[in-house]
């Protein structure tokens, strides 16, 4: 799940600055994504357990098309390569970065505007090394440092899946980066430093399930791209693996096994339910980019694969975060002396209480529970505000959803109701202002 990588000018300068070499070394020479695990990774060809790559066993004899679709879902290409309301995989989705907007390219097999003329080698080169057929380097908004671990077979299965799609004629939109960010050769340097260009190496000392999970999480699912913080050079900081990051303004929470900030006290069943359905009782609903990951990728995976992901996630060591412990239940009385926020209360009682209830327990369905949800217990408040601004995505059959309120409620009102919700149902109130909301609106 890589949505946005912030490439700052500082990054470029640091690459070139000799004085920064030591720091650079610290950033470059860091452990691999699963170096925490006991055991010694070996090449896939030397591994004797059940293959961690490809489709799960129950799909082994499925038609090639079904297998290709499954691998494509594992890697979740569709979310980024589809514009809102646009044709799937035709690209054009905008990612607003501080130095310009990047638009994802068309992955349909249209020969002119899509990838219809690409050879297998070109496709592998793009996915594993981040190099386009014309030799230019992609920005690592495209998560090739993760995808590089995908097996050749899986990459080509994705290609076959894409080539079976109906071609869509839709020209790629150029990015809007100004100098120096439009200097793509800088990416070659970045890539040399931060893309290991190495296929997945299983760890024979770990269980087959764990190895499958590692492949799904690190290679295909690219979870760390959002959930692992980045260092100064915008590479993933594996020393704080899964300690939390940012995706399009949304906070991607700590998913290490820290008991308070992370998922250390989630049961395996809660994790499995959250990943496969986007909801676990009392844990809230996957929203924003995570909601898309569930809808387009995780919900399509088999039970065994979800289980493998859970096994792997639970093995990731704890990274201590600074989020507070979750607050307990909230009272049913509307009026609480400790909260002086009349605007927030006014919006809550009009637009929110009908679903969420004054107790925050959910008035009519459990998905609407607010208490115990991490986002509500985050004094940063960003995810609550973004959920109010954008909702949980459009209606799909037989799934509840939250509508978006960003179009007609002002920044003051959204800030106020966010602060009200975090105060009423969370550990510590957020202190968002209208300016904060304006910034969140701008971040997609």
């Amino acid at each position: 799940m890589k949505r946005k990588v912030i490439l700052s000018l500082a990054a470029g300068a640091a690459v070139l600055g000799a004085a920064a070499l030591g720091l650079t070394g610290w950033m470059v020479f860091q452990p691999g994504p699963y170096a925490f695990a006991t055991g010694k990774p070996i090449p896939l060809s030397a591994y004797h357990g059940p293959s961690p790559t490809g489709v799960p066993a129950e799909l082994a004899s499925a038609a090639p098309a079904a297998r290709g679709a499954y691998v494509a879902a594992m890697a979740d290409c569709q979310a980024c390569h589809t514009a809102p309301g646009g044709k799937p995989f035709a690209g054009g989705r905008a990612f607003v970065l501080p130095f310009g907007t990047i638009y994802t390219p068309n992955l349909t097999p249209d020969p002119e505007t899509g990838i219809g003329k690409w050879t297998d080698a070109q496709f592998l080169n793009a996915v594993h090394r981040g190099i386009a057929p014309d030799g230019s380097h992609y920005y690592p908004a495209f998560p090739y440092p993760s995808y590089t671990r995908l097996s050749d077979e899986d990459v080509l299965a994705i290609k076959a899946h894409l080539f079976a799609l109906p071609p869509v004629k839709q020209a790629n939109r150029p990015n809007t980066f100004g100098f120096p960010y439009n200097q793509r050769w800088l990416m070659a340097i970045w890539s040399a430093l931060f893309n290991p260009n190495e296929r997945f190496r299983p760890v024979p000392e770990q269980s087959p399930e764990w190895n499958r999970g590692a492949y799904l999480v690190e290679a295909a699912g690219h979870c760390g791209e959002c959930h692992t913080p980045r260092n100064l050079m915008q590479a993933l900081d594996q020393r704080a693996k899964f300690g939390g990051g940012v995706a399009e303004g949304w906070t991607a929470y700590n998913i290490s096994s820290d008991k308070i900030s992370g998922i250390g006290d989630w049961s395996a069943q809660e994790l499995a339910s959250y990943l496969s359905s986007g909801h676990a009782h009392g844990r809230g609903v996957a929203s924003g980019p995570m909601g898309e990951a569930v809808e387009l990728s995780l919900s399509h995976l088999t039970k065994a694969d979800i289980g493998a992901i859970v096994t792997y996630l639970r093995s990731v060591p704890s990274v201590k975060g600074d989020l507070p412990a979750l607050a307990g239940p909230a009272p049913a009385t509307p009026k609480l002396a400790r909260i002086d926020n009349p605007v927030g209360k006014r919006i809550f009682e009009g637009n929110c209480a009908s679903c969420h209830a004054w107790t925050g327990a959910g008035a009519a369905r459990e998905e609407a529970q607010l208490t115990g949800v991490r986002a509500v217990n985050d004094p940063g408040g960003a995810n609550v505000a973004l959920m109010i601004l954008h909702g949980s995505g459009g209606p799909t059959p037989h799934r509840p959803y939250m509508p978006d309120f960003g179009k007609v409620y002002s920044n003051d009102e959204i800030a106020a109701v966010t602060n009200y919700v975090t105060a009423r149902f969370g550990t510590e109130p957020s202190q968002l202002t209208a300016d904060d909301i304006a910034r969140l609106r701008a971040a997609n």
Partner: protein
Amino acid sequence: MTAISVNRKTYEINATEDTPLLWVLRDELGLTGTKFGCGIAQCGVCTVHVDGMAVRSCQMPVGTVGERAITTIEGVGETSAGARVQKAWLDLEVVQCGYCQPGQIMSAAALLAANPDPDDEAIDAAMAGNLCRCGTYVRIRQGIKHAARS
């Protein structure tokens, strides 16, 4: 098959468990006093009581109702608060087109049952989820106070 209790009568339900209570009431049981207005918990015209609490029936999967007692506008007149609210609504001529009023009355009755003498702030808290496009809010507020005194 699910069974639910509505206005003290038990009904066997054919609809699937995730069907919102609203559509079970309206389409299957023919209790059309409960209205549809938005389907996203923003208008309140679908409000019913679940064990006396005002709930938007468009959001409640019928499978989660369980043993809890459902009361609709057709049955709320048998509760003291409901009857007082209905009478106040007529005394003060609250109603215009009337489409939102079943929901308004259900919200108001739940409020009065829990809080016999609500102040303006309590009325806002209980009633702000109920839209009225005809704009009867002035009289809704008066109606609740009138019912509270009666």
